[in-house]
């Protein structure tokens, strides 16, 4: 699991310094950042179009007579077993995959950060208690945890979101707690406390802003794994439910028929790789830009 890569990325992050150029300019002049941003933007636009139903064909419409048609002029990326248009389903799949990944990461990120910051900032026995509970989830085999959660809640998009969120929450919590601990000990925080600034104010003014940069990086990278996890869960039949498409569902549906209809595996496979790649690149770019130690390399 990429948890540790992230943890160390976070650990090496320090409060960001002053900004010379606007953030976006710096991101886009960074090669990874520019590439990542382009892919992600394309991906998001496709997803939104897919979600809004602006697809060449209705993604669930079955053209029985055209089943398993190879890519041609009418069906640019071919049709599947049901005679559904693969291109349209990929667009809808982008929407579903992105939605699950984004919501799961949003929940895990918010919840995890909240838990981690609370534990780190308050400290003491509450910290111990919270981190012990997080340890339980950490030690629990991740895929089994997701399987059990989905088994209890029933299959579907929402269960997949919750399962992914539960698996990632402790990672975010652990990662957010570290910087809080070190920031808390910083001289300027002590100084603020001495002049009588109240605790919530210290948190809001001195600690959270300094954690923002690494958090943004983490969110971007987490999205890429969440996409992969969604694909794996859907591949096992646990995520997005038919007739809705997600990239994992499309790949799962293609396994026994890919030999006859290779386009059913090639396109969703390529799109997953590209999507995950995009988020990874964006994450790298963001880190280069936001992390002052790595800047001007």
């Amino acid at each position, binding site marked *: 699991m990429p948890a540790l890569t992230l943890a160390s990325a976070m650990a090496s992050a320090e409060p960001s310094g002053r900004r010379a150029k606007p953030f976006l300019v710096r991101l886009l002049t960074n090669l990874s950042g520019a590439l990542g941003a382009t892919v992600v933007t394309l991906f998001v636009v496709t997803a939104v179009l897919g979600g809004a139903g602006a697809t060449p064909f209705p993604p669930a419409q079955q053209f029985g007579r055209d089943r398993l048609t190879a890519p041609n002029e009418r069906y640019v990326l071919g049709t599947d*077993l049901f005679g559904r248009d693969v291109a349209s389903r990929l667009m809808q799949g982008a929407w579903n995959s992105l939605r699950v990944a984004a919501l799961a990461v949003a929940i895990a990120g918010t919840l995890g950060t909240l838990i981690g910051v609370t534990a780190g900032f308050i400290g003491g026995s509450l910290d111990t208690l919270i981190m012990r509970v997080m340890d339980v989830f950490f030690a629990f085999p991740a895929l089994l945890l997701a399987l059990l959660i989905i088994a209890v809640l*029933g299959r579907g998009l929402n269960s997949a979101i919750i399962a992914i969120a539960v698996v990632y929450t402790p990672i975010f919590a652990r990662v957010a707690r570290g910087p809080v601990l070190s920031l808390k000990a910083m001289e300027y925080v002590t100084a603020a406390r001495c002049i009588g600034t109240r605790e919530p104010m210290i948190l809001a003014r001195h600690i959270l802003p300094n954690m923002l940069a690494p958090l943004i990086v983490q969110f971007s990278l987490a999205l890429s794994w969440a996409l992969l996890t969604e694909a794996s869960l859907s591949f096992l039949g646990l995520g997005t439910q*038919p007739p809705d498409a997600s990239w994992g569902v499309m790949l799962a549906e293609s*396994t026994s028929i890919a030999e006859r209809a290779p386009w059913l595996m090639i396109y969703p496979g390529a799109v997953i790789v590209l999507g995950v790649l995009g988020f990874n690149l964006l994450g790298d770019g963001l880190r280069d830009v936001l992390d002052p130690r790595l800047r001007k390399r």
Partner: protein
Amino acid sequence: MQKIAKFFMVSLIIVALASLPALTQAQSGGKILIMARAADTTGLDPHKQTAFASLRLLELIYEPLVTLDQDLNIVPMLAESWEFNADSTQLTMKLREGVVFHDGSTFDSADVKATFTRLLDEATGSAARSNYTSITSIDTPDAYTVVFNLNTPDVPILAAMASVNASIVSEEAVAANEFEQKAIGTGPFVLDQWIPEEKTTLRRNDNWWIEGPYPDGVEMRVIPNEATIVAALRAGEIDFALLNDPLAAVLLKDDPNIVLNRVPALAYHVFQLNASRAPMDKLEVRQAISCAIDRQEVLDTASLGEGTVTGPLTIPAYQVPTSEFFCYTRDVAKARELMAAAGMADGFTFKTIVANAEPPTALAEAQVIQAQLAEIGITLEIEALELSVYVDRWLKGDFDTAVALNGGRPDPYTMYARYWTKAGNLQGVANWIDDLTDSLMAQGRAESDPAKRLAIFTEFQKHIVEQAPWIWLYNGYEYTAHQPYVEGFIPNPTDSLMSFAAIRLNR
């Protein structure tokens, strides 16, 4: 640092060594038949196992009194001959002499009595018990004669005995009651070892009462992914395979190097409506659903056309031409009329439960039905469930509709008594019954004349299709595939592997 370098070198050598060519090795082990399948045995007790995967193993080890040939005729096995009395309330069987169990003990009538006593004992927990509850007592006038006294005329009991679940075990085994650990039967192969989810090894029974078995043994491997099974066949790593997924099986159809056997299955794909729930309690609504579904298209999509559209009975001798059934040709206009007649012209929304990958085609069937019903304004929501959850809900009748692949039986009565009789154990799953259906089933049970039985069950089928508590869709094929050098295997509509004993490996 040098240590690390050395470590890398060693690792590199290991990896290089492992990826050397010569990956294919000549099959060794003499005449051992190597077969693969996706599902594994779930237990060894022949009277308790219901999973098809378990039956495929146990039928090589155990033998019942009678069995079915490839045309589903009842033929002798451990019983040489049998006879019903005039009113079909007494079944007398003459047993085969000279049969021994794998542990060397001799087979006789006491073993038969012990077997059926165990089956009927509720403490055993055999789901098949319900097929034999008409037995009131068992007499053993001599060592090779057994008499079953029945409390009601029961001709189908003979077909019910042609089942792995009625396998004969020895009197001593019943007393020891270690069926989950030891498998001692009279069959062609002796169990050596079962490693769950890996493989099962069987060796030849040298004392088998029939000539053979020809293979020295059988190795049953578990390969969870059917695409990998196909790959293993092509690579020549296995001799024989059981396939479930028609999409995987058709890959071998045009493969000149592999023999693919397709036998029409007894099991049927069905869309079960729950008539105890509104609006399916209305006959018109059920009929509208029946008329709106294009069974052939369901078959063409979900199974790539691998199968035949069928009515309730898949047994060849009892099949009725589908043109004689109500609405077996899709008629959307009629479906709309029926919906209007039921006061549901605007359609409605309901759900269907589907087991994930059980059968592999279920989810696809649900999606085609969903699209077809949408045309008459019915919205079908699909709930895909893990198999055990599905079974749990199915047994409780906790569903609007269910997509199912139900097992078939060689006799119409044993096949459907559980659902379509008032006293049926699964009446709570079927959720619909009327007097005519119930009485037709009772008549069919008591009738021993084949022509009259055919007439009774033809009427039963036409009636129930018109009442449409379930929408019967199609029956697919039982697939087996093997290398060309595997000779003598006889495919069976029940998917039985009993002819393994007759296989010759001429590789």
